């Protein structure tokens, strides 16, 4: 029995070491390979222009990469996504937290929120362009306005679920506004913030595509719609992939390490 237990111990320690080292990276790699395989097989089965196989997409990617078009358009879109994202997250979080913490403010602004949530992107974008001109500010503003209500909704739920016990503690010990926000409220909102920003980045990029379609002369959305008119699916997928790769890099190099740091305190699960 003793021997049995001893070996168990050694084994499980090893296991844990592995899962801290190269194993997660390998898993991610296998996962990406799996995706590629599924795509390739599906393309072979479908055998149509509409679902090109990876080499065709790589070709298209390469074609636009050497002319520099890909980089330029990608950069333009990323620039718009970045500014719109920061604007939307800051404004949306502030409003969301305020509404979540005050029942009467929420009762007043809830109908407004629902209105802004449901205004079609098209309407906002067209109005922004017509009022503020076809410029970057209008474009970025329109994207942000589309996204803000979503951030508000998520952060509001978070603010509603805040622990009143910790708030009382902060009040008694006179934490003051800044300390309470930073050390008591924001850490509790972290999962909501994570949800809002992950799905937010994706949503913003999708709106950026429409914004570029309706009034910009560059960007991935511009290119994708051009290729849609030519029904060049390989090129569309090439641009999509380029953006997805950027998102994957952001996720693995930026978001996940940050998140691991900020949730270090949580009891680990198997």
């Amino acid at each position: 029995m003793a021997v049995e237990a001893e070996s168990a111990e050694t084994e499980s320690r090893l296991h844990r070491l592995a899962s801290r080292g190269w194993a997660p990276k390998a898993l991610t790699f296998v996962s990406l390979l799996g995706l590629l395989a599924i795509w390739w097989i599906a393309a072979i089965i479908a055998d149509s222009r509409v679902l090109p196989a990876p080499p065709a997409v790589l070709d298209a990617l390469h074609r636009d990469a050497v002319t520099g078009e890909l980089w330029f358009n990608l950069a333009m879109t990323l620039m718009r996504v970045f500014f719109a994202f920061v604007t939307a997250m800051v404004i949306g979080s502030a409003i969301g937290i305020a509404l979540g913490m005050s029942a009467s403010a929420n009762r007043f602004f809830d109908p407004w929120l629902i209105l802004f949530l449901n205004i079609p992107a098209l309407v906002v974008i067209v109005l922004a362009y017509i009022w503020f001109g076809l410029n970057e500010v209008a474009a970025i503003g329109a994207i942000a306005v589309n996204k803000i209500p979503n951030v508000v909704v998520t952060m509001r739920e978070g603010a509603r679920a805040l622990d009143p016990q910790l708030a009382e503690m902060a009040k008694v010990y006179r934490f003051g506004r800044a300390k309470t926000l930073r050390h008591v409220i924001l850490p509790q909102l972290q999962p909501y913030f994570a949800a809002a920003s992950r799905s937010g980045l994706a949503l913003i990029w999708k709106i950026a595509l429409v914004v570029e379609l309706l009034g910009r002369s560059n960007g991935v959305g511009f290119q994708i719609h051009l290729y849609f008119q030519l029904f060049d699916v390989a090129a569309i997928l090439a641009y999509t992939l380029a953006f997805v790769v950027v998102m994957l890099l952001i996720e693995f190099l930026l978001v996940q390490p940050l998140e691991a740091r900020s949730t270090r305190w949580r009891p680990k699960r198997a």
Partner: protein
Amino acid sequence: MSNPSKPVRPAGAPSALEVLVRDKRFRGADGVLVHAIDEIAFDVPAGSFTTLIGPSGCGKTTTLRIILGLDDDFAGHIRLPEKEGRTAVVFQEPRLLPWRTAEDNVRLALPDAMESENLDDLFAIVGLSEMRNRYPSELSLGLARRVALARAFAIKPSLLLLDEPFVSLDEMTATRLRQLLVTVWSARRTTALMVTHNLREAVQLSDRIVFLTERPARIRGVEVIDRDRSARDADWRERTVRDLDRRYSGVL
């Protein structure tokens, strides 16, 4: 991460609860190893009542979690008394579902066969008759602890683990609930293991007391109390407590 030395349950009649934890370490969030348990080995004979006493932070709750199968990352071996028996536990915190009323919290723990059990007597004796429809956030801590006790008693367990069950209660309520515990425990052949810091409580309730050292926990000594419970009057209790206090300094 599962420990292959799974509890081996006997096929037939209940046997003792056997606890052997030869080593338990936690890895802290900052990577530092915390050595919680050095070596603990003791038995709780079937149907008996054992109490665990040790300094705060020595590893008592950890031991209970290991017995419950909530932590299987340890070196050692656990043998549970019964294969099919029900286990009840009173955690150190009430651990109630905040979105369920006091009564629902108790009812949800009932096995299907007991679903429509009449709980009136139980709620009356723990002093919660008026509070059955309250949500946990509307209860004082002492009331919430009583709900947790009611939940453990309601399921008529064959193995009962209690982690400081009677703190945050006034003495009158605590006394009443200790009596209830003895009733529940003796009604069936329940094997019970209780953690407490209250030596008087331990002396009153237990068949044996296991004293633990500071962290990392080792056994400091095991005392068997074979006096009949009805004969444990106030005087005898005070004497025994004093005696134990002399031999295990700092427990009173």
